[in-house]
């Protein structure tokens, strides 16, 4: 029972998904009319599952329940709990952000259930302490995401699904190949077993480095960093916008969580730490620069945010590159990554939900069509502007603290050059983020017809914006949570 208790946050999500599917199946038998109006019921169930998961995580924190479960397959520690909160909260926000979209489409039950299952899979990825467990969880959320990306049956959606499916399959194969190397070297699939092999060997460095490269390549797809980012713009544009938000926040955070778990817990000691730290530094520099430069020329706001998310992933990787073997830096680098992921979740969810609300009303994803939105819907324009300021890194938003945190970690780890590249890139990114803000506030709209978001979108957006200012003004609680999550690896 203790094991199940520790697994509670994920189980809550899965039970919610199961209930949604059953209700969705049985409702038309009971009453045709109730089935037509099933959306509030199903969304309510999904929100309840997300809230249940959050509550259970909170209960685990309050009762101080920690430990390994299921024969060392998963470990519930501060790191796992942090990501439990993150994924459940993101799933809840995405459900809220999807209500308007779902009202116009079928497969409502499947959509909501898949969101919850994907979130549970991501949470298991962060919790997994065994390569097999991590791999299965990785696949679980990947398969749920395929269906979600392809759920709208237009042409760009189909192209996006196929691209996503093929590239994801290849990246999975590469990840598995890297895992096979680690198993072949150490004879263990548990991260602890691999760690003790890596810490005590001074041979076979080339194979270990190769394993690290394969794992980086395979999981780089999830994190969406250069050069594994080819799928991002097309899939972000073709998928339903709430799913794009889910991919850009939750899927990316799950990728980072697994990378941290594997690299810090299994490959964190011994000779090869410096090797992969350099690898991450190089990827970070290239991702930031390429992502930002390509974002400059985008006319479609979803594609722009796609490239910007590549650049943001590069910035987050700075924190991992700064993890250079020694304890104080390990703590600073890791906690900066965890903090950034938390701050980024609020910011990017907010940005996407604002875009859903605005694009739905003006009927376009083009940045040029955002002209004068501030005159038609001042609150929405303000919310989107706040999120874009946070993505750029202006005070007093969450993005500002997150960037300072990461750059500080880089400087402390003697990676001044990387911090400088990061700052320069923030300046570049200001151009295209602020272009949207300028478009909304300084231009005149074609019509003066005012509009407001639906209450669901409004609630999710308000939560995100309040969150990003709260973190920006009083970051201490999130910093403490990030530090205790990072302490798991020290």
């Amino acid at each position, binding site marked *: 029972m203790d094991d199940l208790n520790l697994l509670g946050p994920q189980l809550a999500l899965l039970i919610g998904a199961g209930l949604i599917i059953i209700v969705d199946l049985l409702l038309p038998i009971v009453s045709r009319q109730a089935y037509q109006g099933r959306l509030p019921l199903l969304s309510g169930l999904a929100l309840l599952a997300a809230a249940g998961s959050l509550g259970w995580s909170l209960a685990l924190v309050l009762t101080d329940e920690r430990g390994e479960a299921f024969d060392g397959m998963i470990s519930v520690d501060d790191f796992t709990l942090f990501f439990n909160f993150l994924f459940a909260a993101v799933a809840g926000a995405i459900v809220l952000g999807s209500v308007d979209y779902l009202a116009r489409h*079928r497969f409502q039950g499947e959509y909501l259930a898949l969101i919850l299952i994907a979130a549970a899979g991501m949470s298991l990825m962060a919790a997994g302490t*065994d390569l097999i467990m991590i791999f*299965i969880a990785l696949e679980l959320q990947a398969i749920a995401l395929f*269906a979600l990306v392809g759920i709208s049956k237009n042409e760009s959606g189909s192209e996006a699904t196929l691209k996503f499916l093929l590239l994801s399959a290849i990246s999975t194969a590469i990840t598995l190949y890297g895992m096979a190397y680690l198993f072949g*070297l150490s004879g263990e699939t548990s991260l602890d077993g691999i760690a003790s092999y890596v810490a005590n060997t001074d041979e076979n460095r080339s194979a270990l480095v190769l394993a690290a490269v394969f794992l980086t390549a395979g999981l780089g797809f999830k994190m969406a960093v250069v050069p594994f980012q080819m799928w991002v713009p097309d899939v972000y544009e073709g998928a339903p916008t709430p799913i794009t938000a889910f991919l850009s926040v939750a899927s990316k955070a799950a990728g980072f969580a697994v990378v941290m778990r594997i690299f810090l817990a299994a490959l964190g000691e011994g000779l090869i730490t410096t090797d992969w730290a350099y690898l991450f530094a190089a990827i970070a520099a290239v991702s930031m620069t390429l992502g930002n430069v390509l974002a400059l020329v985008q006319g479609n706001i979803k594609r722009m945010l796609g490239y910007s998310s590549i650049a943001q992933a590069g910035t987050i990787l700075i924190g991992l590159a700064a993890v250079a073997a020694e304890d104080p830096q390990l703590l600073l680098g890791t906690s900066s990554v965890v903090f950034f992921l938390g701050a980024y979740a609020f910011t990017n969810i907010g940005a996407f939900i604002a875009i859903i609300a605005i694009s739905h009303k003006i009927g376009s994803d083009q940045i040029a069509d955002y002209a004068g939105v501030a005159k038609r819907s001042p609150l929405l324009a303000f919310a989107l502007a706040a999120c874009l300021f946070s993505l750029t890194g202006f005070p007093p938003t969450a993005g500002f603290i997150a960037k300072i945190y990461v750059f500080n970690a880089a400087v402390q780890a003697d990676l001044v050059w990387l911090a400088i590249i990061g700052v320069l890139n923030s300046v570049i990114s200001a151009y295209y983020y602020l272009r949207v803000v300028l478009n909304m506030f300084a231009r005149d709209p074609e019509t003066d017809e005012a509009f407001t978001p639906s209450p669901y979108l409004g609630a999710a957006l308000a939560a995100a914006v309040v969150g990003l200012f709260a973190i920006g003004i009083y970051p201490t609680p999130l910093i403490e949570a990030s530090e205790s999550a990072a302490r798991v690896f020290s």
Partner: protein
Amino acid sequence: MTYEEALFYVIAAITVAGALGVVTARNVIHSALFLILALLGVAAVYVLLASEFLAIVQVLVYGGAVTILILFAMMLTRVRDIEGPLDGPQRPFAALAATVFLGTTVLAVTQTEWRGETDEATVVTIEQIGEALFSTWAMPFEIASLLLMVALIGAIVLARGEEGE
């Protein structure tokens, strides 16, 4: 070279030949048949490692079920032969990347001291596999069943049209 080693190289060569056939055949049905050859080759490697159970599963699941499914999918969707080249101007770069990749992997693999390099294969019985699957590995096993359900739902969602109830 012992006769087991010689046997291994023969099997490995057949497997690689099958895999090459999959990607070079113009006729997709031929590709699928080559795939069976490659997968059976892997099953033979399992036999060499004294893991008969794995070999049987490999033949039943991959050599049998999976390839039959692929053939059925082709039959139902009526795919034609591939006309014209599938690659573009990136061929030389791809060749370069593949060669570098192969070189690095071969170098790393041959220079490495792998765990469990012995002449004797460890025999694992079906009972041991079953016990491990339902005790230590019960959790991933359960998640795998969930994964299959998600795949089912996903397939239905992707296959059915947007219109109608």
